[in-house]
């Protein structure tokens, strides 16, 4: 009842002043002011050269040279040797896993994978794993798949080992959460391209460097979602436990962690998907496996790149379903083990182990190789994919005659004018305007941060490309939220919608974007659109998942109470569930924005230009300083946008949400 009351009050509240007299009206007025300044002084007031620090890039370049020179001395200092040790440790983990799977032979590897999942996850998940192995064999990608699996397994295990404890800490301590949030933002937003070269200098190339890069990107979601789960546990439950004399540790392990189980699962799931989404970038620094196939395929055999992309997706889905099934089956809350049952399970385990041994033995007896080299349907599959690509690449088809004008229209009348608006508006109008909006929406401190961030962008001599990128990021973020929030709510309300969406979301989060965006360019040959599309498709799954999990997490008591008062389903949703899931929805908004920024580089590779292109060029043409400055500009934009949108409530709620 206590929970339903505020909702009832909200229904009864009288309509306030008309919107244009409130804050919304003031925001519109500020926007109008910026527009007027655009028409009045278009291109007249570029960021002044006297306010830029031009030698910054050169300083960064010489830092990298210094690093490399000292690292490559015959006897490098202890710091570099420590990194060397770490690198060979990571190399060894991946190398050991890979050669372990190879030594099992392909039969042994398959049987091991299927039986482990069968024993702990059940029949359905095991069937999925078997199907995944069959797919790798049929696609002729067994060896790269095993290599990628070893790399992912090592990365996910390490990411969870680091991320879960930190997430618990962030969930229990506001101060720690506040301190770590900007670090996590930076880890997710700064494109891997910017730090790939320093990582290579410190870790050299190979699986070790690939794991390090993957960790930087995959740890943040593990921390954030775990913390959200811990915070989501009802405070009265925790109080009750404390009142009963539970210690802090007991409360954590017996109350908070078990009750946050669903969120913890989501965090494992997201860590796996984030790790797999780094496969291609890891390939650039010697990660081997499917990433290599994708990269070289893109240049000379797009059908093969697509096939390798599909293999990554299949691995993601199989891993995700298997971990979920294992987590549910081993949930102590749902397992009531009697002595007899325990004994039977133990026998089952032994039987499985024996079967794996038998399979390995058989593998050797029949001379099965370390990888599957028998029949594959690769050439048939490639022909099929190629015929689809041929259709897509043919400008005389009927589809092209629809998509081409649409693309031209969007660019000519939508994105291009918007880009010109952002780039050509006088900079003081932009800085003060955005800061003012941040002040109106979120308060004084966020406004100051926004102004400072924009100043950083200008001083780093990135004003024009940053405004260019900002215009595209805004469009992508708005679209992402417009797609993600409603779909997330729908998935929370309907089990069927959730099931239908889930594989699609897995595909979008793990299929390397270039693999599907490049064929799309043939259909819509214009710049910017492909980049915006890549961002929306990559960012919305995270929003959908967080919104869905948040709404499902709303305690059933509140929902029941509202129902008892006679609220309709729509009322329950709008007045109870969504307000109570606010924290998760806000995390969704924040993550949507971050994901959009995280793929700015991909945009640069498919025609968005601006900061993304500069970052890519920074790595590949060894303009380290340029890459770092462009990345910093992306980060600054991210922080500024986050502060503009965070709203007033956030200060009280702890920064993670």
């Amino acid at each position, binding site marked *: 009842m206590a929970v339903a009351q505020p909702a009832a009050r909200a229904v009864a509240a009288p309509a306030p002043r008309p919107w244009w007299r409130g804050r919304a009206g003031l925001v519109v007025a500020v926007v109008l002011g910026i527009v007027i300044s655009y028409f009045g002084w278009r291109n007249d007031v570029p960021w002044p050269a006297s306010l830029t620090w031009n030698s910054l890039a050169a300083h960064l370049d010489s830092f990298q040279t210094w690093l490399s020179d000292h690292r490559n001395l015959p006897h490098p200092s202890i710091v570099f040797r420590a990194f060397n040790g770490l690198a060979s440790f990571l190399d060894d983990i991946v190398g050991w896993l890979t050669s372990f799977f190879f030594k099992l032979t392909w039969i042994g590897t398959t049987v091991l994978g299927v039986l482990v999942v069968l024993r702990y996850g059940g029949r359905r998940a095991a069937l999925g794993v078997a199907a995944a192995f069959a797919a790798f064999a049929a696609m002729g990608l067994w060896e790269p798949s095993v290599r990628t699996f070893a790399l992912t397994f090592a990365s996910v295990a390490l990411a969870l080992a680091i991320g879960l404890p930190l997430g618990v800490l962030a969930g229990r301590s506001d101060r720690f959460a506040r301190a770590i949030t900007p670090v996590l933002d930076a880890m997710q937003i700064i494109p891997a391209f910017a730090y790939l070269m320093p990582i290579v200098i410190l870790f050299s*190339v190979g699986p070790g460097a690939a794991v390090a890069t993957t960790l930087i990107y995959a740890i943040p979601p593990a921390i954030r979602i775990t913390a959200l789960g811990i915070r989501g546990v009802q405070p009265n439950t925790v109080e009750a436990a404390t009142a009963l004399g539970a210690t802090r540790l007991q409360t954590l392990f017996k109350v908070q962690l078990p009750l946050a189980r669903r969120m913890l699962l989501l965090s494992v799931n997201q860590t796996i998907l984030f790790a797999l989404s780094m496969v291609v970038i890891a390939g650039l620094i*010697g990660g081997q496996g499917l990433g290599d196939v994708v990269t*070289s395929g893109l240049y*000379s055999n797009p059908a093969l790149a697509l096939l390798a992309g599909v293999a990554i997706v299949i691995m993601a889905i199989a891993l995700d379903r298997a971990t979920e099934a294992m987590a549910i089956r081993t949930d102590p809350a749902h397992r009531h083990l009697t002595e007899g049952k325990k004994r039977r399970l133990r026998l089952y385990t032994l039987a499985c182990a*024996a079967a794996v041994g038998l399979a390995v033995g058989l593998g050797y007896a029949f001379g099965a190789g370390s990888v599957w080299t028998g029949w594959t349907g690769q050439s048939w599959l490639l022909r099929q994919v190629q015929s689809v690509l041929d259709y897509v690449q043919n400008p*005389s088809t009927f589809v092209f005659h629809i998509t081409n004008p649409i693309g031209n229209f969007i660019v000519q009348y939508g994105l291009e004018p918007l880009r010109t608006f952002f780039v050509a508006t006088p900079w003081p109008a932009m800085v003060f305007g955005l800061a003012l909006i941040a002040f109106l929406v979120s308060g004084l401190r966020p406004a100051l941060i926004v102004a400072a961030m924009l100043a950083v962008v200008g001083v780093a001599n990135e004003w024009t490309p940053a405004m260019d990128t900002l215009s595209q990021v805004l469009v992508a973020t708005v679209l992402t939220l417009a797609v993600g929030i409603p779909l997330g709510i729908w998935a929370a309300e309907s089990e069927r919608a959730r099931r239908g969406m889930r594989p699609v979301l897995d595909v979008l989060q793990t299929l390397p974007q270039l693999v599907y965006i490049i064929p799309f360019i043939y259909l819509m040959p214009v710049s910017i659109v*492909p980049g915006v599309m890549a961002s929306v498709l990559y960012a919305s799954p995270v929003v959908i998942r967080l919104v869905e999990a948040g709404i499902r997490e709303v305690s059933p008591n509140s929902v029941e109470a509202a129902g008892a008062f006679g609220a309709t389903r729509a009322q329950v949703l709008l007045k109870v569930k969504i307000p109570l899931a606010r924290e998760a929805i806000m995390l969704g908004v924040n993550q949507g924005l971050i994901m959009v920024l995280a793929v700015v580089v991909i945009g640069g590779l498919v025609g968005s230009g601006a900061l993304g292109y500069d970052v890519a060029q920074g*790595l*590949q043409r060894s303009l380290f300083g340029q890459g770092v400055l462009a990345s910093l500009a992306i980060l600054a934009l991210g922080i500024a946008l986050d502060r503009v949108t965070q709203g007033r409530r956030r200060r009280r709620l702890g920064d993670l949400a």
Partner: protein
Amino acid sequence: MKVRAGGLVAAAAVVVVLVTVGSAAARSSACGTVTINEQAWAGSTANTYVVKNVLEKNLGCHVNITKVAEVPVYQAMADGKTDAILEDWGHQPQWDQYVTKQKTVVRAGANGVKGVIGWYIPTYLMKQHPEFKTWKGLKGKETLFKSPESGSQGMFLGGDPSYQQKDQTLIKALGLNLKFVSVGAEPAQVARWTQLYKQKKPVLFYWYDPQYLNATYQVSRIQLPKRFKGCLDDEKLGGDPKKYACEYPSYTLLKFMSKKFASSGSPAVGVVKRFSWSNADQNAVAKMIAGDHMNPDQAAQKWISANKAKVNKWLGK
């Protein structure tokens, strides 16, 4: 109990099998293992696989192929993780750092292929507008290349971010009414210009040779001025700003080895040093791989069996 004991025996058997197999030693040969780095484009795949097959078939080497990106591969060579690269398009900062200063990477000569970079248009357009043979013909006709994103100007399609380019400077220096549109990585750029090519529309773009697509699409280069006021070469990339060079220089594609490999005494070192072939050779193999989707090893072997004389020269016979 009986079943359980059986399980234990089986488990023990697994362990025994694993240990036995694990200790089986790898085969060794005089040449040992050679690691060559392959780049994403088809030409690099072609020369990497031809050398790989020569080393494997003739010297009994075991050849590993890595696929590290262009710049990080220098650190890989410094660490001895990659032994050789066979096609480098010019990385002056890396040469200064790793070859000259640190001496962790050594030169292995030219690979015989001459690289050309420049401004290209489809040949059908060149036939319609013979004046486009030189850049002066472009003046006043830029709007022919108009696109939705270039507004009132003509569109110039920029190249892959990893490639050597200075087109924005050139456009400005030559005073052309062109808008530089960056279309991203090479596959994305190819999507853009081939789509216009197939519709027989005008398009002006950054392109290069040798490139296997040049066998499928007929493209012609626009002559840019050798020198022109305002063209400033980037000093950092080894250019001399006082020369006002406009046209891209032609590149001699180079090979590099790690110091460790070069001084290892492996017979493969000599092959890597002597390896050299022509643009036509490279294009032929690249076309088999990228155009006809042939397995790279098969394509390499096909070329090798048809070109015994060249291979023997690399082998020092």
